[in-house]
């Protein structure tokens, strides 16, 4: 399971303040905490800075990578911000995200083909958000085809089937799960990735919902997730599920986490 740590996002107040003040120590600590908790990528998102997004994103890339030896997930739909940030990034970043919306696809294509990177492909079409499994799979398949045609290897594509709130439509959980399953079966080698928290919008006890949804997504084949790795209950769920799905030989990681007091 590939874990993308989601905490460095300027829509969170403490992060926005730290970026405004260019508080490198604060940002570094949030990155280090996530790295120690098991993140494979550190997400950086400066979307709330609008005109200054590019500058802020570049600063985040340099600040985090100065101290933490991990690749980053550059989280923006803005080609200008991404093209500047990708140049400052050491190693292969993950770009989050491209979609099938024509303008977004065309403007991001030069960025993601400019150097080796991993790409999140969001199942969003030109005119509407997909609601059913079929719509998600159709958009996802088309994205995979277009990206592989551009020379991006299947293993570096992370299809995001789009998670929508069950509070609004109780079929939304199943729609995401079905899409994960079908995409993983139809394109062996490709990755699927989700942000979990949308699922619980409009409901109480969101963390409980999120971690159970993570378990379900994993059982349907999800191979990567954008989440808060410092959430101990969530990570404990992840470790238990990995083991139950036969992905933890000799149950080593689970037992190791227990012996290090990480299962609470």
């Amino acid at each position: 399971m590939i874990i993308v740590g989601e905490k460095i996002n300027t829509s969170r107040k403490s992060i926005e303040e730290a970026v405004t003040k260019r508080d490198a120590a604060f940002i570094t600590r949030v990155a280090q905490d996530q790295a120690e908790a098991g993140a494979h990528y550190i997400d950086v998102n400066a979307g709330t800075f609008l005109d200054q997004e590019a500058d802020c994103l570049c600063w985040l890339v340099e600040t985090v990578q100065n101290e933490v030896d991990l690749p980053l997930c550059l989280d923006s739909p803005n080609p200008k911000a991404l093209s500047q940030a990708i140049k400052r990034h050491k190693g292969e970043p993950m770009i989050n995200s491209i979609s099938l919306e024509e303008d977004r696809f065309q403007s991001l294509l030069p960025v993601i083909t400019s150097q080796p990177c991993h790409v999140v492909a969001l199942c969003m079409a030109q005119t509407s958000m997909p609601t059913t499994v079929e719509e998600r799979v159709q958009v996802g398949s088309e994205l995979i085809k277009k990206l592989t045609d551009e020379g991006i290897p299947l293993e570096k594509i992370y299809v995001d089937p789009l998670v929508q709130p069950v509070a609004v439509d109780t079929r939304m959980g199943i729609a995401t799960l079905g899409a994960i399953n079908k995409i993983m079966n139809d394109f062996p080698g490709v990755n699927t990735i989700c942000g979990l928290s949308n699922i619980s919008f409009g409901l109480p006890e969101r963390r409980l919902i999120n971690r159970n949804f993570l378990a379900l997504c994993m059982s349907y084949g999800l191979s990567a997730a954008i989440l808060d790795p410092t959430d101990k209950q969530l990570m404990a769920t992840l470790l238990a599920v990995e083991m139950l799905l036969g992905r933890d030989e000799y149950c080593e990681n689970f037992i190791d986490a227990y012996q290090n007091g990480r299962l609470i």
Partner: protein
Amino acid sequence: MSDFKALTESVIKGDIKTALAETQSALDAGSNARDILDNGLIAAMDEVSERFTKGLIFVPQMLRSAKTMQQCMKLLEPLFQEGDVTSKGKVLIGTVKGDLHDIGKNLVSMMMEGAGFTITDLGVDVPPEKFVQKAQEVEPDIVAMSALLSTTMPAMPQTIEALQKAGIRDKVKVMIGGAPVTEKYAQEIEADSYASDAGSAVSKAKKLLGVS
């Protein structure tokens, strides 16, 4: 004023069957449709909206109440007489250009409708020209815009500018909302109001128009 307590309670609960039966029995007892709407259905939705804003109820419960009200309206609509329903105000709503997210916008529409506003919903990915064109056509009291992406937020000031150029900025109040949108942003772009959720959108809209 008649007592519509049972009707109000069934709408708050989202119990469609009971609400329909209560609406029918109120009609049978001689209540007029307008009275049932104002003091039964809208009163219930005001309560729903308030409870939601306070975090006492959640999105599915709010949706269920709105759906219940819509069903009851089907019984009342044929009975309204000319000039009978005085709307709280006309609201033109849409998700701005380049943005396909409609969940928040739909919740706001539904709650405003429940509160007695007349809604014209332009859907998603609505360019400034379309807001202007429709505003000229329906002459709304409020133009409400939603954006869920920081990249599409600039379409909000663009739409306000388009309203200005068309000479109708003064005739409407502009309300904005959506996950990345803030009170501060509303002030920056000189929108008239910002609402953080569907419940507060109703109270902010009422405040803007000075209605209760």
